[in-house]
């Protein structure tokens, strides 16, 4: 680690103290109902749950920074049902950005949990060495991958023309396999970003500091998002307990720290160019 990076990390220590002024606690009462219905952002049952407003800030701790923030707040509702924690995130976004071409980026959101520590010893900024965080990350383009099929060259560039791809059976993503993948190293190496057969619009990430975010091989979480009237509403759901040692294990009847992040594709948010929230207390219902 360079002295430059060390200086950045030490700057974090001051931020950790800010947890005391974070948003009021989010309550996740225990409710009945099946997971499938709670996964629907439009499910009317969500309206009966308490709503918390979380303040979103531009990320300016690590390089690169977010220069022009567009989101100030995030509405959060939460519920515990049948051993699952469901989080419903709602925020205003004037444009629906899900297509990715060379110069376009996707809308996205994430919820972060401390894996082994708490809100005092674990940094909300992607965790810190020895104190990992688990992040459930949803992207609009992954939602489209599932709803409409893998978003590909032909969607970003509808009039695009190309004769053929060497060794491929055709031009569609699922027709490019085997030896043809020598030209697509991201797919050949099973980079989770290059997945063309996605089952869920979410992934789980483990991180222990800036630049260390790594997709977990084992996905326990689920999610679903809808865009209506200039608003994204996304449900992130994860089991309270999982078999994955890199996941946070959540216990009913406890308070845990939770943090959030939002990305706006239209203003080229990606990676560290994001809106973040400090740790907030989440009251997990049940016993």
């Amino acid at each position, binding site marked *: 680690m*360079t*002295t*430059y990076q060390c200086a950045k990390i030490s700057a974090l220590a001051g931020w950790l103290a800010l947890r005391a002024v974070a948003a009021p606690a989010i309550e996740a009462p225990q409710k009945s109902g099946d997971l499938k219905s709670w996964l629907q952002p439009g499910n009317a049952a969500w309206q009966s749950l308490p709503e918390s407003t979380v303040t979103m800030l531009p990320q*300016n701790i*690590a*390089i*690169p*920074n977010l*220069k022009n923030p567009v989101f100030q707040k995030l509405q959060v509702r939460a519920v515990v049902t049948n051993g699952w924690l469901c989080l419903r995130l709602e925020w205003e976004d004037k444009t629906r950005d899900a297509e*990715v*071409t*060379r*110069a*376009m980026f996707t809308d996205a959101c994430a919820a972060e949990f401390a894996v082994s520590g708490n809100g005092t010893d674990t940094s909300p900024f992607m965790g810190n060495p020895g104190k990992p965080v688990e992040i459930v990350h949803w992207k609009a383009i992954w939602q489209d991958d599932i709803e409409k099929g893998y978003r*590909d*060259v032909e969607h*970003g*560039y509808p009039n*695009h023309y*190309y004769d053929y*791809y*060497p060794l*491929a059976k055709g*031009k569609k*993503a699922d027709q*490019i396999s085997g030896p*043809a993948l*020598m*030209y*697509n*190293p*991201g*797919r*050949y*190496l*099973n*980079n989770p*970003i*290059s997945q063309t057969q996605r089952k869920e619009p979410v992934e789980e990430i483990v991180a222990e500091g*800036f*630049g260390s*975010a790594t997709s977990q091989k084992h996905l326990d979480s689920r999610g679903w998002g809808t865009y209506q009237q200039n608003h994204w509403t996304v449900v992130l759901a994860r089991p309270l307990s999982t078999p994955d040692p890199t996941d946070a294990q959540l216990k009913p009847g406890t308070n845990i720290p939770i943090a959030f992040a939002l990305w706006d594709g239209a203003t*080229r948010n*990606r*990676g*560290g160019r994001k809106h973040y929230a400090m740790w907030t207390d989440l009251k997990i219902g049940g016993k």
Partner: protein
Amino acid sequence: MPKVFNWQIGREMDYPYDGARPDHQFAYIFDLNKCIACQTCTIACKTTWTAGKGQETMLWNNVESKPYGYFPLGWDVRILDMLGAQSWDGLKYTGKTLFEAAEAGEAVLGYLPDDLDYANPNVGEDDCFGSELKGAVNGVADGSGGAYFDTVHHSWMFYLPRICNHCTYPACLASCSRKSIYKRKMDGIVLIDQSRCRGYRDCVKGCPYKRPFYNPHTRTSEKCIACYPFVEQGQQPQCVTMCIGKIRLAGYLSLPEKANKNHPMDYLIHDQQVALPLYPQFGLEPNVYYIPPVHVPPQFLTQMFGPRVHKAVETYRNAHKDPKLLAAMMLFGSTERILKEFRVEKNEVVGIDMMNGGEAVRVPFTEPTVVRPFRDEKVGAFRHNIS
């Protein structure tokens, strides 16, 4: 921010990471006086590495006309404009590098090209600068150029083949918040880890040469890999060996103070200083070195290749008087093997293989001339000059 030494600008400079030079640095020399923009290098690269889905507009190697050709559009004039005035004091650069000019919260000064910037790889092709009709004064155009070749006087252009520079201080690497980009210790080749990249495109934004490209199919960024599977076997990359104009040479380059005068790369770059880095003022210490085109106005060449360019042009113009310099340049395109030394033997130049130490190639200064008799006795016919 740590300080590192950049010999191309003659001073220390800021870089986000501590300086750590590789054990050996792979480098290239391109002779711009010989390039005819046939794009054989472009196609050699394209068919070898980027024929797949999502790589349709990706050119790890391209050849553009200067001053009006760019791929992507305006790549160099845009970043030069953003950087502002770039001043030299002798061989020391006194302006700001792209790392030093970075705004707060950024690792490097850069921009992300627009989608359409990739739409016209041959924009400005063969477009000349300056002509008598366009108001050139004393052989120097007045800036109203862009004329097609309407007169032989005072007009100039040249072809600029470009690949990743495998920089000593890569801006792509400095920009990647994922730390997905690494510079290999063994040969200095800069690579994007395709299992770790998440397609943020900060490398595309940060590289002033715009050599990383985003792949919308895999959603990762990809770039020139210096044909490392070839290089690991002692062989020069595809774009070098396929060049029909024999304008390219690739091999390992020493630091200036450790230069070996009998190594063709060291000799041409450090000893003769006839091959120069592209836009050294950016501060990346790029490792593709160009022999500047001798007919181009010195003002333009100075901006592009730095203050050593005048001497380089003079050296090149006098190459015919220097057998050793001529010999080194005759090794271009003469062998697929990477050379570690060369020597002149009578009227031949001998290149020594880097890996096995044997003779890799022997090139005569003058090819033997053979005059065939007018009548071909074998087929019983006269030979007609039909060419």
